């Protein structure tokens, strides 16, 4: 799984929207799209302890990304279903397309760990994984071991990569960008919030996800390498060892699910990424008339009802 990368993706997607969608696709929808897969699946992955008993998935990796399990929450198929639901409910292309792009970013990024995601579900329940780093969520190790493994492996590089992608588009974090490109796509939500909070507060809400991503990246890395005193193979260490080799780190078990050969994953993932943008581009114009009709009809009902 990816950690802060998912926070940075939200801004990266927003900053790299196709020109015709700028200031029209909802940033909040991108956020919810990117976070929905883990909203649905993550809690039970780590579980919780109560009265000395652990409640949670017995095989976290199977639950998180497998089938049977909640692996469906990390499939493009599920994202498309939710988008259809949003469209059927609100006829709102700003939210439908925003959710689609955010969701796809999450699913496609998660092919990097050793479990990967079921990219072609429901046609295939095989997982697609590049095995870039080891998936490390375990019942015994919980969140701490998972974090330590991620921030000692190429996962940390992945977070840094997305961090620099956002920094390369730093204007996406500016007040001017928020005012001219983010607020107009969600005027009602920001106006409603604006009744209580001034621009400084609203801007902090907008930047909050990026702030959280940066801080969690620094905090977990610092803890894993400067504070923690793990015992690995019977040896007490000052900090978890770094291992930037493929499928690292060496000191966690490298779990997998039935998967396709890794060499096909990168090209297929890139094709799917291009496909998602192509589909979003292609249906964007067509959705406009549906949106307009739905809004007009809603206005008529408001006036008459």
């Amino acid at each position, binding site marked *: 799984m990816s950690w802060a990368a998912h926070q940075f993706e939200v801004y990266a997607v927003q900053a790299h929207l196709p020109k015709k969608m700028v200031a029209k696709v909802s940033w909040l929808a991108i956020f919810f799209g990117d976070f929905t897969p883990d909203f649905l699946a993550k809690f039970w992955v780590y579980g919780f302890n109560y009265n000395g008993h652990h409640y949670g998935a017995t095989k976290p990796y199977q639950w998180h990304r497998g089938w049977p399990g909640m692996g469906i929450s990390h499939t493009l198929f599920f994202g498309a279903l939710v988008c259809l639901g949003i469209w059927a409910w609100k006829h709102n292309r700003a939210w439908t397309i925003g959710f689609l792009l955010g969701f796809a970013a999450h699913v496609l990024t998660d092919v990097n760990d050793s479990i990967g995601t079921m990219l072609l579900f429901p046609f295939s329940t095989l997982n697609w994984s590049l095995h870039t780093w080891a998936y490390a969520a375990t019942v015994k190790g919980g969140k701490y071991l998972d974090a330590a493994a991620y921030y000692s492996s190429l996962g940390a590089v992945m977070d840094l990569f997305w961090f620099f992608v956002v920094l390369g588009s730093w204007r996406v974090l500016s007040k001017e960008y928020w005012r001219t490109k983010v607020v107009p796509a969600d005027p009602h939500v920001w106006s409603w919030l604006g009744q209580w909070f001034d621009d400084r507060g609203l801007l902090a809400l907008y930047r909050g*996800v990026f702030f959280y991503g940066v801080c969690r990246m620094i905090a977990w890395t610092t803890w894993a390498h400067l504070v923690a005193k793990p015992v690995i193979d019977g040896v007490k260490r000052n900090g978890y060892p770094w291992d930037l080799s493929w499928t690292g780190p060496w000191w966690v078990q490298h779990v997998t699910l039935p998967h396709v050969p890794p060499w096909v994953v990168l090209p297929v993932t890139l094709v799917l990424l291009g496909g998602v943008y192509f589909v979003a581009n292609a249906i964007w114009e067509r959705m406009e008339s549906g949106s307009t009709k739905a809004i007009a009809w809603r206005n008529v009902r408001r006036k008459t009802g």
Partner: protein
Amino acid sequence: MSEPTRPAPPPLPGSPNQPPPLGAEPTARKRFTPRRFTGANYIDFFLYASAAITYVSLSIYNKWLLDWIVGPVWLFAWVWGLPALYKLMRRQPIRPQRGPVGERE
């Protein structure tokens, strides 16, 4: 959740709080100091930096703070809450004073 063609929403954030006074020179704004050199920007920078330093420092030893709700709320509480607290202590209103839609321009 809306399209720009929907019914007019309340005044948008980022809009001027009050309409310019009658007879004001339209070019007066050009004489303002660029935003990046204003005191408000230094205050913002201090608020963001202090939010990050406190959050990271505390969360290294209290990892329950490293949560996707706590993190953004921490920033919001720091950047909006502290100035709001200061205003409350000085008996100033903390809710934004935005004019109705028609008065914006």
